[in-house]
């Protein structure tokens, strides 16, 4: 029975082993990408976004598309060609290649969206972080917010562009003026939620400076929130830009955009439907691909999904 006695021998327990929680090695960014690439839809959309972005940025450099000119004003045979091998997307009422027009428009739309989004996000996050953190400031900014936020923002955008007149930078300005505040407000609310969590109270009682608190304790926590915002912001800007251009108030005649193409080609909605639907389809593809990629990335960057 020696084996039985052995069984009833005390063992020295390894305290360290019992503290060990059975979790594998964890790396934040690795998990983010792992999680992201789990979604087949997201990969497809990322692929699409990259291709659209690349074509939109490169193709117009070679096409020499000019929205004000016709390649040959007297040649009627080049007008209204349906999509074919020479003109992939067909030609329009002036004989311009729709393929050139669409990518030139996409280039403008994407550029505007990216520029305006980056300005909005920078301003919005900075102001929002300070706003959420500073209780005194909150009182005043909230007053301002309550006045402005209740006004339909399309109306504000329309008003501003009306006052400023058409132009690329005017449009960017308008798209920034109307958006940053709602971003700042959103960030403010998130910051407030996180600010009052215990570990931040502890950090504050230990004398951590405000700038350090915002940059080290609060903002990193907002990564997924910010990516979510970003993924909504880009489609939102694209949509607004398209809408303003569609109404004919956004860009001057010399610059084209997807919204403008749609508003020009709406005349041929019944007779030459490809002229209308192709820009609409490209507009939708740009914004959907950006959105899905952004949302999936936002989900993936939330540590709670890393299992």
């Amino acid at each position, binding site marked *: 029975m020696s084996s039985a*006695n052995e*069984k*009833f021998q005390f063992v020295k327990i390894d305290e360290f082993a*019992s*503290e060990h929680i*059975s979790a594998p090695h964890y790396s934040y960014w690795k998990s983010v990408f792992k999680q992201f690439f789990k979604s087949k839809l997201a990969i497809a959309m990322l692929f699409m976004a990259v291709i659209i972005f690349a074509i939109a940025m490169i193709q117009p450099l070679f096409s020499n598309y000019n929205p004000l000119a016709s390649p040959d004003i007297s040649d009627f045979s080049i007008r209204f060609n349906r999509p074919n091998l020479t003109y992939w997307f067909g030609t329009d009422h002036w004989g311009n290649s729709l393929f050139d027009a669409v990518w030139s428009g996409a280039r403008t739309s994407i550029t505007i969206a990216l520029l305006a989004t980056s300005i909005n996000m920078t301003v919005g996050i900075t102001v929002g972080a300070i706003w959420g953190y500073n209780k005194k400031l909150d009182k005043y900014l909230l007053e301002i917010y309550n006045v402005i936020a209740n006004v339909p923002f399309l109306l504000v955008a329309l008003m501003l562009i009306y006052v400023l007149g058409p132009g690329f930078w005017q449009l960017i300005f308008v798209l920034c003026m109307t958006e940053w505040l709602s971003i700042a407000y959103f960030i403010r609310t998130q910051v407030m939620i996180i600010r009052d969590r215990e570990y931040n109270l502890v950090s504050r009682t230990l004398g951590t400076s405000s700038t350090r608190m915002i940059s080290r304790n609060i903002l990193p926590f907002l990564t997924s929130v910010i990516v979510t915002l970003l993924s909504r912001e880009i489609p939102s800007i694209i949509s607004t830009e398209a809408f303003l251009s569609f109404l004919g108030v956004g860009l001057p005649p010399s610059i084209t955009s997807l919204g403008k193409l749609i508003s020009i080609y709406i005349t041929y909605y019944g007779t030459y439907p490809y002229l209308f639907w192709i820009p609409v389809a490209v507009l939708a593809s740009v914004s959907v691909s950006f959105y899905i990629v952004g949302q999936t990335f936002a989900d993936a960057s939330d540590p709670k999904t890393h299992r």
Partner: protein
Amino acid sequence: MERKVILSARDVVVKFRVRDRVLTAIRKVSLDLYEGETLAIVGESGSGKTVLTKTFTGMLENNGFIAGGKIFFEDQDLVQIKNNKAWEKIRGSKIATVFQDPMSSLNPIRTIGTQITEVIIKHQKKNRKEAREIAIDLMDKVGIPNAADRFNEYPFQYSGGMRQRIVIAIALACRPKILICDEPTTALDVTIQAQILELIKNLQKEFGFTTIYITHDLGVVANVAQRVAVMYAGQIVEYGTSHEIFYSPKHPYTWALLSSLPQLGIKGERLYSIPGTPPSLFYEVKGDAFAQRNPYAMNIDFEEEPPFFMITESHFAKTWLLDPRAPRVECPKAIRDLHATIVKIYGKEAL
């Protein structure tokens, strides 16, 4: 005198689906509940106390299910009940529950009165007027002053303690046989805790129901419970009368639990805390679940699951230390002095 068993659980196994994995929250638990007694289930968070009692009312979360065992109550096996209709006849009318947080247990936008009467109307088939009278009477019994006036008030107009009294009134409205109190005082402040416990005690004398307390506050246990079951990692590891559990505990986990009572702390010395964390319930536990953290662990604890050893007719513990082959172990000194300490803190009446 042989006491009547009102509820009897046999080898209950509860599992949860979490994402694509399965977690075993309750591992073959058996338990008898005697009519009119007060049983306390103690254990640290995640030990399965709440999950176990939820099986008595069919209130497991959607991803949880009973994978085995039987629960006998009034000549039927509760495990077999599948449809909600049958559960509705048990919940509230036979087995009622009081949850931890009175702040959120009540619907914030309905009056206190309607929230009491709806359960009376449902189970006792009374009309609105009769239900109102019963409700006001109940509010009176749980100690709400001016009950008739406060009938039409909203929960936010009540204090936390008052709300918990209302929750108790609702739970007892249909004279249930069993009252499950899931940490009923944790969310309340200390002065009110004692009042609520006293209230439940008094109502129990009057109505004669059986109470199950779920708690990790051994102070509460000492105050109210006649029997105690200690749970660890989804199993009951020791059960007995409160006297036996407090004065001659046999399981090393019970020792550890009692040693970490703040009341036992000696000034200037570090308060005892149990090292390590409970085992992950995602994996099958081999041997004694507590072995990893047990300073008295033996080789066998890592290999074989211990059976229950009987100490007295009412006292059982699931540890190899009680095996005749095991070396004799004295329980820690702090626990041997527990009686004196408890009398000092809670007075002579406690236990």
